[in-house]
């Protein structure tokens, strides 16, 4: 079985790379210990600072086609429990679970001595590392903390420097995605001496509006406020930002990846883009701590099947496969092919190609989709009731691709509900690879 043990950011050790992200699942010692019992390798404590007062309600979500919580939004603030309570429980957890990682997430007033004091207390409690919450986009930012720090590189650098003056354990800076270029703050954290980065924090959002009350969700007495968005919906954005900071030569820091991690595949993808650990919050909020079981099992099995013995064996392998568009091969050509035996005749590819792409999928006998529909309707003057229904797909319902016109956009393949019915086939056009950069260079020379 593959070795999932992890040593992150210069000294944070844990049995596997799966951490609870700072949030409701890591609010108290009892939760964190139960999570460790379930299999989680580490936990970033719910952000500690001067206790706040929360509102109710606090969460809202986006459902997609009946699937609950594709995206989750919250307006909850940092821990509402006294600092000393959190620290006492951290000490207890570390005493009972010495092999697991406990990281204290911190957010205090932007004063040097306040940060020095907070760092010292957290480390004295036994935390294995510190995560500076420069990312929380709601509520705390109005008080000059959270993303108010993370959106100004100079502030982020300065506070990181203060923390590093006092810290003895690795310092992670948690980045906000609510900024034009996340790399500017990543570089600032590096300049400030950070040992690692956590990204991404939640994305500013309004998840939806109740069409009866006209109040956005979550509803707090008839009003709402923008919140932080997370869950499966944000994963593509997080993958992109992880890739950006992982590939940036000026950053070069270990990354704890956050954003829609709900299973082992998500973890593998983040690690392929350079992540050292992954953090999850929405998934354990949705399904409970037990979801980590298959994160561990699935990742191990995949690593075994690929011959990877440790996480380092595949970490970052996909980074070089992301490049600027100008370096992509303009002469690489693929076309869609429809397997007539697998086609179920839904004609989703037909409608998609005509209305959403490049009009190169056809149904025999018709020059456009509206003609096919009109012909069907015209046939229906009399419909015999039949007892023997054949489930065979009438050949005329199987669309055909005009390969000369097909631009290889993938849309038909994406909409097809049948596995391996539409495939994108490589066409050998005999042309040597040439990128846009090469082509324009050739023109100007």
């Amino acid at each position, binding site marked *: 079985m593959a070795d999932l043990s992890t040593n992150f950011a210069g000294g944070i050790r844990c049995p596997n790379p799966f951490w609870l992200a700072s949030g409701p699942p890591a609010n108290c010692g009892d939760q964190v210990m139960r999570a460790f019992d379930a299999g989680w390798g580490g936990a970033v404590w719910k952000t500690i600072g001067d206790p706040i007062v929360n509102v109710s309600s606090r969460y809202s979500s986006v459902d997609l*086609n*009946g699937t609950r919580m594709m995206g989750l939004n919250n307006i909850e603030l940092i821990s509402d429990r006294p600092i000393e309570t959190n620290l006492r429980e951290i000490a207890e957890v570390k005493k009972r679970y010495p092999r697991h990682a406990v990281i204290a997430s911190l957010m205090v007033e932007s004063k040097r001595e306040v940060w020095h004091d907070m760092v010292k207390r957290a480390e004295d409690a036994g935390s294995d590392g510190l995560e500076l919450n420069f990312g929380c986009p709601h509520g705390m930012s109005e008080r000059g903390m959270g993303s108010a720090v993370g959106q100004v590189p100079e502030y982020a650098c300065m506070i990181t420097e203060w923390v590093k003056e006092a810290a003895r354990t690795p310092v992670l800076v948690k980045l906000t995605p609510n900024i034009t270029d996340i790399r500017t703050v990543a570089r600032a954290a590096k300049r400030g001496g950070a040992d690692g980065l956590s990204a991404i924090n939640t994305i500013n959002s309004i998840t939806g509006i109740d069409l009866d009350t006209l109040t956005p969700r979550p509803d707090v007495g008839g009003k709402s406020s923008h919140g932080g968005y997370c869950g499966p919906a944000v994963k593509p954005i997080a993958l992109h930002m992880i890739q950006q900071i992982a590939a940036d030569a000026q950053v070069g820091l270990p990354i704890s990846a956050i954003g829609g991690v709900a299973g082992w595949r998500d973890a593998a993808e983040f690690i392929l883009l350079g992540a050292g650990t992954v953090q999850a919050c929405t998934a354990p909020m949705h399904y409970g701590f037990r979801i980590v079981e298959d994160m561990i099992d699935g990742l191990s099995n995949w690593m075994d099947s690929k011959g990877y013995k440790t996480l380092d064996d595949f970490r970052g392998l996909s980074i070089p496969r992301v490049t600027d568009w100008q370096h992509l091969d303009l002469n690489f050509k693929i076309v869609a092919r429809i397997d007539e035996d697998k086609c*179920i*005749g*839904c*004609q*989703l590819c*037909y*409608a998609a190609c005509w209305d959403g792409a490049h009009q190169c999928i056809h149904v025999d006998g018709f020059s456009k*989709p509206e003609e*096919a*529909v009109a012909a*069907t*309707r015209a*046939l*229906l*003057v*009399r*419909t015999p*009731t*039949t*007892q023997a*229904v054949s*489930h065979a*797909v009438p050949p005329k*319902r199987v669309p055909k691709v005009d390969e000369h016109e097909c631009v290889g956009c993938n849309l038909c393949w994406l909409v097809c*509900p*049948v596995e391996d019915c539409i495939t994108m086939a490589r066409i050998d056009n005999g042309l040597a690879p040439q990128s846009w950069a090469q082509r324009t260079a050739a023109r100007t020379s």
Partner: protein
Amino acid sequence: MSGFAELHPPFTPQAAVVEANRCLYCYDAPCTGACPTHIDVPRFIKQIAGANLNGAAQTILASNVLGLSCSRVCPVDVLCEGACVMHNLNKKPIEIGRLQRRAMDHFYESGGRLPQGAPSGKKVACIGAGPASLACAAELRRNGCAVTIFDKKPLAGGLNTYGVAQYKFTPEDSRKEVELLRAAGVEFRNGAEIGGNVNLNDRDFDAVFIGVGLGPTQPLGVPGENMPGVHNAIDFIAAYKTATPLPMGSRVVVIGGGNTAIDAAVAARRLGAADVTMIYRRTEADMSAFAFEYQHARHEGVQFRFQARPSAITGNGKVEAVECGADLRLPCDTVIVSIGQSKAVEAIAAANGIALEKGRVVAKPETGQTSNPKYFAGGDCVNGGREVVDAVAEGKRAAKGILAWLT
């Protein structure tokens, strides 16, 4: 009425959304093609998924004004759901019938109305108040015609009220559809038998639609069939649905092999008969009942005897047995005969010069127009007895034929 729990209970709201979201939203969808009324199925299912139930209902009603009854009584396995592409994915077809019911139940619960066209000044009479006439009338009202429906029965709705098995559709639900049309301005004259207690002067109308359905069950033609304890299936079903059940013993023999015979046999079981046997003169494979109806009847405990042709009904003043030749004698207390209905249009046809063929009205399939151009027809009296949805399709097509003929 107890003992008649629904065969297909309604979806809960959330289950309907989950099911609606399974629909692939096929282009030029096979389900729409397989529906005789061509309901835009993907469209209404998308509307259910998007929480636009009134929109879904109007989509259904635009093609099929009896969307509620059809959602309950249609043989969906051989129509829309039979055509669903999910079969080719080895998945359960989308439950189109139950989704349609979800939209229609919501429509009626929320007091929905039909859109009406501006008055055209045209007047049309419909004879018979069954599905064909109702569909014809709805389409005509949508286009501004004044419509009067004449029917000899006390309640409108035809077989939807009197003839559909109770565990599929109740007279109360049938009444909702009639009231929808009444609210849309259709005039109903019940207890009015054309050629009987009422004479129709067709000069009072611009066109006439004939949707009288079929006549009573044909006689068996064997000794003893008029004995007390012998009923015909149509009367038997109508009685338990709209009045009081006809007297019935614990041992029942149903004669016939069609869907109506099945309905009667299942009803007899649900009404409490301990022993119900259907006898059919030919083989299992020859039965005109749908395969799923046959299976359903078996689940309900109905026994079957094939290749058994009744030769006599015997008894001493009341039914005691059905005899099929010398070899087979089935002791029983009640016999229900369901061997096809006779035709009922002879008088109207003869009075108005309308051509018949084998007792059926001859009508053009595209327009429903008969050999007397002012008269149009549809439903069982034309097709010889098919599904409710076929009658709706024919009534609607006839309305379009009438509208085209009147302009």
